[in-house]
């Protein structure tokens, strides 16, 4: 299996083989992160632009460190301090960055489809770092990577995604990667945030508003933050009510299988979707996700950097 894509825009269009190639590649980059010299020269001389039109700290830092550890040069470009504030269009911004010979554009944008739009004219490689409520492919990849490293497989696992599904790009990217790799996905949360229509995406997806049912057979529980900033309506009466109905408390942990993993893309709201004891407990892999995120992003940059099929030379 050889990687042939120029951009990483979503996980929906990736095959099981492509997903597996990213995960296998990420495993070797995680080993690099455990060495005393954590840097390799694979992207020496390449320029990576973090174009974050929507604010983000952890994803940007993770991409920045990934690029640095591959020996690339990194420019951080945030909307607050940029020409976008002065009325420049996204297209013009990117053309200017490309005029500086940037090879990679990592785009975080509030509008779904913004990376796709970029990819239609960009000469550089476009990586989606989260677009609206559409997808957050590297988050989906790092979640699946974390599960596979811990469980040894994805196929046949029961994965519950709990929380704000409707507004979550993390949920969508997770869903696509998981079902493509053969997991069964249960979506759970308040009915206003977990519409039944999600079941129509794929036969391996079920929706339930009953937390006990969602937890009973779960091998993995992935908790999503309530995204106040993305909610246009009041989806539930109060944070307190959400915590009491859907928060993962110690009492609810007792109903989970002993081997079930607890995941969260962060930032966590302690006492809301997750109790402190659960977040810090032995089944939590939340910090492992952060470590793995770096490895997955190095893998994505490494794979996209390869030459395309059309311009390949005969191998020696």
């Amino acid at each position, binding site marked *: 299996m050889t*990687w042939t894509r120029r951009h990483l825009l979503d996980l929906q269009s990736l095959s099981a083989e492509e997903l597996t190639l990213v995960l296998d590649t990420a495993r070797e980059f995680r080993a690099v992160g455990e060495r005393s010299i954590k840097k390799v020269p694979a992207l020496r001389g390449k320029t990576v632009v973090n174009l974050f039109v929507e604010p983000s700290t952890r994803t940007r830092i993770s991409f920045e460190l990934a690029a640095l550890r591959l020996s690339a040069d990194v420019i951080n470009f945030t909307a607050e301090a940029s020409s976008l504030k002065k009325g420049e269009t996204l297209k013009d911004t990117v053309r200017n960055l490309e005029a500086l010979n940037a090879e990679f554009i990592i785009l975080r944008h509030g509008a779904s489809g913004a990376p796709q739009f970029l990819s239609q004219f960009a000469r550089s490689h476009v990586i989606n770092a989260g677009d609206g409520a559409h997808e957050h492919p590297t988050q989906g990849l790092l979640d699946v990577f974390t599960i596979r490293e811990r469980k040894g497989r994805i196929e046949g696992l029961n994965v519950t995604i709990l929380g704000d599904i409707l507004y979550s790009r993390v949920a969508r990217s997770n869903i696509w990667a998981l079902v493509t790799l053969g997991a069964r996905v249960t979506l759970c949360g308040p009915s206003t945030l977990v519409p039944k229509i999600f079941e129509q995406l794929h036969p391996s997806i079920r929706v339930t508003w009953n937390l006990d049912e969602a937890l009973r057979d779960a091998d993995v529980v992935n908790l999503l933050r309530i995204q106040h900033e993305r909610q246009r309506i009041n989806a539930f009466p109060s944070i307190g009510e959400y915590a009491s109905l859907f928060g993962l408390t110690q009492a609810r942990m007792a109903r989970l299988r002993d081997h079930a993993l607890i995941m969260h893309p962060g930032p966590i709201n302690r006492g809301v979707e997750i109790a402190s004891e659960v977040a810090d407990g032995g089944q939590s892999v939340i910090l492992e996700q952060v470590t793995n995120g770096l490895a997955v992003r190095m893998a994505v940059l490494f794979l996209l950097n390869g*030459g395309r099929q059309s311009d390949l030379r005969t191998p*020696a």
Partner: protein
Amino acid sequence: MSDVLLEPRVLHRTIARMAHEIAERNPQSADLALVGIQKGGVALAGRLATALEPILGHPVPVGLLDVAMYRDDLGQRAAPALMPTEISFPLDGRIVVLVDDVLFSGRTIRAALDALTDLGRPRLVQLAVLVDRGHRELPIRADFVGKNLPTSLRQRVDVRWTEDGGDDTVRMLERPA
């Protein structure tokens, strides 16, 4: 079209001779370690370690090294598959024998030297290859050579180890013109 260059019996004798040469060159054998370059060098490193143990009277540690992240042509070809790098012993102060199956342009060895430097500081690095087919593009030469084989650029040296599902035979293949 393919020609057998080394049949299994000759291959085994060649490896035994290389092990003796490595032992002879390195009297301080306690510091010796073998590092096989992924993928063709891994099986050879294992064979050499097995052959060295009775000669030296003690086991020789073996590591695996993947050089893909250090290649100089990464932007010009599809991203190569990555394989594990596993060196479970400290490299500092060791005599490391890098092991590969075929020495050609020398670019893989250049990458391996960079990769090795990131993992530690060996006292001495030597190079052992089963086949030296010439056509060097860098100033690199092997310390231990199983067989020198003048080749044309259109030919390919194909080493099939039983460890990788092969038949312990080295063949010369002609590329279609």
